């Protein structure tokens, strides 16, 4: 293993460990036992068949939003708007799927998935086009689009689509457009969405590594001026990259609506788009790495629900994620720390 390969693996792993240690200190400060809390967390994520199924259900959309953000990073755009693109994907795929009762699953499922991807792509392409043609920074435009999507979704389930009482929600989608469960453990349906997510990761890997489109996208991300000099259109690539990134986030929304909630509701995205940022950074923007990173965050999220029962807020996971992102962004901190520890270790070894 060469050096840069080693660090691209070791930096995120080491960052996660540091983050968990700092979070442990925080847990001590509020008067709880971190060992017990982490034990509960692991038990909550993997302790039973149902726990594991829950973890995989949580992981599914996270793989897709992680891919969305990761693809953006490779292409040189920071798509912080996966949250809104996911909401738009879920909202519009639900609206179509509600009306597909007479259509057999063979058609209904692909149609619904495609609608979700198209909406996510379109929503992200707005930010891409604004960046390409007016120079508006995508970090600001995508955040604004997130809020617009959020309020649009809230409006749709409060007025035109509203059904029932309690939490505002849309009607259920047609049976033919639900993703079939792989297996059912008590109340948890392990949907086939996970297969879609893994296929998406593999396809994205091929797109990035084996096609000329992937090469162009990476070239623009790496050095836009050189790429343009080499005859690649930056504008076209920025819009296209945002659209592909948004399509993945929209797919996350469609899969979540079709496999888990079977309808649209305001809490459907619940930060999963933002989690994509941590996931892509932990996975080092590599589609295969992202699958594992999504599984890690999915486990933390599921496990943190169990941790709540002993009085440790699930917000711990956000603290952990924040620290991980911080350390991966300023990875020299981690590298220096690792080198320092190695030096110290070598010294200690010599003395013995």
């Amino acid at each position, binding site marked *: 293993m060469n050096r840069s390969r080693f660090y691209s693996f070791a930096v995120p792993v080491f960052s996660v460990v540091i983050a968990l240690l700092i979070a442990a200190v*925080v847990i001590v400060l*509020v*008067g709880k036992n971190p060992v017990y809390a982490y034990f509960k967390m692991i038990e909550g994520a993997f302790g039973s068949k149902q726990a594991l199924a829950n973890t995989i259900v949580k992981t599914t959309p996270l793989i897709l939003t992680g891919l969305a953000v990761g693809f953006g990073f490779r292409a040189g755009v*920071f798509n*912080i708007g996966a949250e809104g693109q996911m909401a738009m994907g879920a909202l519009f795929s639900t609206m179509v799927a509600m009306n597909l009762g007479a259509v057999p699953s063979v058609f209904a499922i692909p149609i619904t998935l495609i609608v979700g991807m198209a909406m996510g792509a379109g929503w992200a392409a707005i930010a891409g086009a*604004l960046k390409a043609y*007016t*120079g*508006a*920074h995508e*970090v*600001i*435009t995508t*955040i*604004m*689009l*997130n*809020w*617009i999507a959020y*309020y*649009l979704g*809230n*409006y749709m389930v*409060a*007025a035109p689509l*509203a059904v029932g009482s309690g939490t505002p929600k849309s009607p259920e989608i047609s049976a033919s457009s639900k993703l079939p469960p792989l297996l059912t453990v008590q109340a948890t349906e392990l949907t086939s969405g996970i297969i879609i997510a893994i296929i998406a990761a593999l396809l994205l890997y091929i797109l990035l590594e084996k096609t000329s489109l992937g090469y162009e996208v990476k070239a623009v991300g790496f050095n836009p001026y050189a790429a343009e000099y080499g005859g690649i259109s930056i504008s076209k690539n920025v819009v296209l990259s945002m659209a592909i990134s948004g399509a993945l986030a929209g797919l996350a929304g469609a899969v979540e609506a079709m496999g888990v909630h079977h309808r649209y509701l305001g809490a459907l995205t619940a930060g999963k788009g*933002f989690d994509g*940022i*941590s996931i892509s*950074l932990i996975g080092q923007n590599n589609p295969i790495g992202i699958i594992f990173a999504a599984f890690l965050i999915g486990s933390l999220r599921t496990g943190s629900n169990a941790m709540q029962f002993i*009085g440790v*807020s699930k*917000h*711990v*996971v*956000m*603290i*952990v*994620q*924040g*620290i*991980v*992102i*911080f350390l*991966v*962004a*300023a*990875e*020299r*901190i981690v590298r220096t720390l690792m080198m320092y520890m190695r030096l110290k270790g070598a010294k200690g070894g010599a003395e013995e």
Partner: protein
Amino acid sequence: MRWIQAIFEIFTNPLFYKITLTASTPFIFASLGGVFSEITGVVNIALEGIMLMGAFVSIVFTYYLGSPWIGILFAMLVGLGMAWLHAWASIRWYGNQIVTGTALILLAQGVTGFLMEPIFHRPGQTDLIGKIEEIRVPLLKDIPFVGKVIGELNPMVYIAFGCVAFAWFLIYKTTLGLRMRAVGENPEAADTLGVNVYGIRYFGVLMSGILASLGGAFLSVGELGQFKELMTGGRGFIALAAMILGNWNPVGAMWASLLFGAAEAMNNQLQSSPILHVSASTKPLFNMLPFIVTLVVVSGFIGRTRPPAADGIPYVKE
């Protein structure tokens, strides 16, 4: 026609202008913070997170110590600490500034959410804890119309406008300001002339932390008297847009903040307009207004602006 009538009534009511000033205040503080940081060449998208932390910390210390002003003091200290983290990662360790900023936002959301239970014994939002009351300015108060707009306001609103003047003076009329701008435009040249590039950048980022935390504190102890989870609701990003629209100039940022504040005030007044009778279910549509205005405005429909040349680029000393 009801729409035109409603909008006309809002525009002729001094209350609209007063709410505009109040709604602009967090944007003014935070966008000034953005100006301070970016003018020295460090992008600070963590404004949203620092604001949230400022809102939270000021309420916590008001809760424990009883005085909102002391709460604000602690909020400024914590804002300083968060800004230091950002500065440390991006100046000392050449980190990706946008990504470390995102990390700090997440951290702020995590920490504030996490501490709700241990401190206030419930998630979501706190009780009404205490806030800074409005003050009357004796002579101003008696001017017709204008008096109703600027004669009786929260003192932090006046402070915000004072900060604009202070920032303008510091940046354009002092040696320190000249150095800040030099470091943001061309750090190599500034370094050659003996300017301490890292020191100046630290100063810019730390100032942004103090100002953004004031903006957040205004939301909690200034306006509401309570803290709600995620109460900043994207205002840090709108403040960044105000900074861009204001061409990285404190006065420009103030005007842009007023524009975005007016959008928020308009949204607020339309929702409560007795002529329109907006139903609860259509309110989300109105809430989009400030974000749509921001989106349209940053997309360059109103003039083009230019960031400092070295904005966002870590400076690596030879």
